[in-house]
């Protein structure tokens, strides 16, 4: 099934991707952000916080935003 995946880490990535049916948020995170820990990110499905076990649906909008982003001067 197709979902919109947005990764706001680093340079940012936003595109429609194909994922297996019944894929959970946790599985998607592990696949796409293999180096990161979920607790260090704001994970939103259709702009709402969700549990890691939530099963994704066709057309879902999934965004991942780091909780710590360093500013500068």
């Amino acid at each position, binding site marked *: 099934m197709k979902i919109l995946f*947005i990764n*706001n880490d*680093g*340079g940012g990535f936003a595109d429609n991707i194909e994922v297996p049916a019944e894929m959970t948020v946790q599985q998607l995170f592990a696949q796409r952000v293999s180096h990161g820990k979920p607790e260090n990110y704001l994970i*939103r499905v259709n702009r709402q916080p969700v549990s890691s076990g939530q099963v994704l649906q066709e057309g879902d909008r999934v965004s991942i935003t780091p909780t710590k982003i360093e*500013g*500068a001067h």
Partner: protein
Amino acid sequence: MKRHSSDQRPMIRAAMKIHEHLTSLVRKRQLRLPVNRWEELSGVHRRLQLAQRKGWRRASSVLLTNLEYQLRYLVTDIEVCRQSLPPWRLLDTIAPASAIANDLAALTSEFEAVKIDLKRKQIAVQTASIALEGVELGAFDLVLSWESIGDSTFAYSVIAQNPNSAESNSRVTHPHVSEGALCEGEGSVAIQAALLSGRLFDFFLLVRQILLTYNSGSAFVSLDEWSGGGSCEDCGCRIGVHDDYRCERCFATSCRDCVSSCLGCDSHLCSQCLLACQACEETYCSSCLIKQTGTGQHLCPSCLEQGEKDAGEEDETAEATGVAATNTVCMGKTASTA
């Protein structure tokens, strides 16, 4: 036809205007190939070929130099053209107006307040109160002027509601905000991508997370110096501008709890410069402690005096004991001869 509530109408109208602005940004950028430069280069090349056929060495040399300059300019023009390409690709990635409207609606669950001003063409959200390392900075308004998206200047401002500015610089209301401008640091590229794509939900979240993160290595004013004081060099606690003490020996900054006075001269000293008398263990500076001859101990004047007095009494006692012993021996001898 679906009817929208009066609450939703400003949101939908704003979303449509933002979408219109973003798509116009892309369409306005015209891709210009360096055609003029190429024609000029071609002209120089033709003249060079003529000069070479005619055997005109001097002309050939001059034209070769000119050709080299033209080739360099062409390379630069091509690179400029290449760098202008990305906005063309963005046309496909701009969120539809409906998605932008959904973004605006979802902001109410992430922020304390959301305001849409159609007249000023602004979206403003209010963060919760922010505190970093114990320093209360208060809430901030993030104000996006959507018609400025794509301009070279900042499209948004970060305004402190009740500023707790840095003591040394009133324009700095947050370690990474000066005069309403956030220094985006690591978030810069993601923020620009979100803005140009119309992903306003992501944009506001990114800005908020930067405000919630303290980067001590790169701040307009560090939190250590926020209230004007520094941190205690003994215990590390943060101290205010009127609560810091300077060691009169090494000039280190100490807090009220860590600074002490020399009992001899009353100097204010840090824990490193304060020493203890090895007899009474009271605290003195190194100048007020005296090294006792013989023992090598560092003693305060009182203990040193007492020590000398005790030593003097021991000598007298020892002397007296020694005389008595001598007399006893003599008596013993006398007794034995009697």
